[in-house]
């Protein structure tokens, strides 16, 4: 999905059954939590960096700068928007999305543009709870998705092959066909387990 087809199906085996399908509430929430932690960590690093500069300048009179809630909220909000928009614009996903195997795409499957990424990040920062709507949406799209015309899909990396693999030919699967957003077998097909012995 994120790379031109190479002739091989490089999607991990355990993710092939749901690759490209819209992601649900749990994974997206976990991804956002991870992103919050990452942004907080980044802001903490920035705070420590600023403190280190102040220490070098003030010497014995150094004390950690006091950050008000308001400042923290504003800085945190800006940092969040920059971080999320940058991730979606460049790679289609933030670190939290990467960890959970998600990717943000437009409804036509294209990469998200800069304006859409910023608006989406702003909406996510202002009203993150609107994400819950994806659990009730037919296409599992949150309010942010509906506003900017995006959706979040499972994407563990790799790409579908244009040439059907032997497995696909054997079971009669058209791997080049676009993946439906609402597959009928989604609720009945068991999620493949990771082979822990490997």
């Amino acid at each position, binding site marked *: 999905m994120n*790379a*031109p087809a*190479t*002739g*091989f199906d*490089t999607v*991990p085996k*355990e*993710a092939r059954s*749901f690759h490209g399908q819209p*992601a*649900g*509430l*749990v*994974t997206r929430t*976990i991804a956002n939590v991870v992103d919050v932690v990452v942004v907080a960590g980044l802001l903490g690093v920035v705070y420590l960096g600023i403190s280190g500069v102040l220490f070098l300048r003030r010497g014995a009179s150094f004390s950690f700068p006091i950050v008000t809630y308001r400042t923290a909220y504003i800085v945190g909000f800006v940092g969040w928007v920059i971080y999320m928009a940058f991730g979606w614009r460049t790679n289609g996903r933030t670190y939290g999305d*990467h*960890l*959970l*195997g998600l990717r943000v795409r437009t409804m036509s499957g294209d990469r998200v543009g800069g304006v859409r990424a910023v608006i989406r990040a702003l909406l996510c920062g202002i009203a993150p709870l609107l994400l819950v709507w994806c*659990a*009730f*949406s*037919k296409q*599992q799209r949150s309010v942010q998705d509906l506003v900017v015309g995006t959706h979040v899909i*499972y994407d*563990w*990396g*790799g*790409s579908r092959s244009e040439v059907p693999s032997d497995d696909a030919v054997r079971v009669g699967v058209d791997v080049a066909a676009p993946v439906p957003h*609402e597959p*009928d077998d*989604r*609720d009945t097909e068991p*999620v*493949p*387990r*990771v082979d*822990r012995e*490997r």
Partner: protein
Amino acid sequence: MREPESIPIHDLPSEAGRGSADAGPTATERGLDFLAGIVSFGAGLVVSTLDGGDEEDERTAGVAAFVAAGAGLFLEGLRAAAPMLGSIERTAGPKIGSSGAGETVGELLDHWRSSWEDRHEDDRQQAADEQLRTTFQRAVDTLLGQLDLTSLVIDHLDIQRVAAEVDIQAMVADLDMDALVGRLDMNRLLDGIDMDQLLDRIDMDRLTARIDVEALLDKVDMPAVASGVIEDLDIPQVIREATADTASEGVRDVRLRGVEADRAIRRVVDRILSRSNGDRP
């Protein structure tokens, strides 16, 4: 056309002695016979010409009948006049015969009449030959029409012996194979071939055993083929894709659990909203 025979003029005086005292035909009678032969032949010629024409109308038939009747009357007149003229000749014969002129004229007329008769005989022979040929041809046609030559050949011809005598190589060498192949409709030919049945009859093991794979591979520029394949498949891109997003075992486990949880939530919501997969709002 017969060569004209020489007239035996020198022998005539020696035969003059035979005289006209014999009871045989006189010169006048022979001359009349000869004249009658000419008239008869001419009349027959005219009648046959008129009868043999393509126009078979009544006028032509009438003319032919008239000519035939006239010729017949003339001949009868000649025959009636012949005895009378013969008697006159016998009366004046000795005087004329003493001069030898009567014998000479008689011989000449005999010679002419025999020539005419020979010629007439040749024409009749040719007509008979022609009729015989036509009859024979009809007989053969009728015979062949009655015979089933195909079954006759199949029953009585030893094809194997005939084929053994045929020089196939020479025949093939004479064939213009390019023109022959050019006239073939290969697509129709191939449509008529049951490829499955054909392949079933091929012993693939024996076929592959006869292939010298080593020699085949020696002729193949493997590095060029390999580089072409790598270029087409973009192997580096494949490796990048397969490794860039590679997640650890723990991450994969978290992802799979997340997907399971998504589906569980989905099922619960569907159950609460009493909807199936197909009628979500």
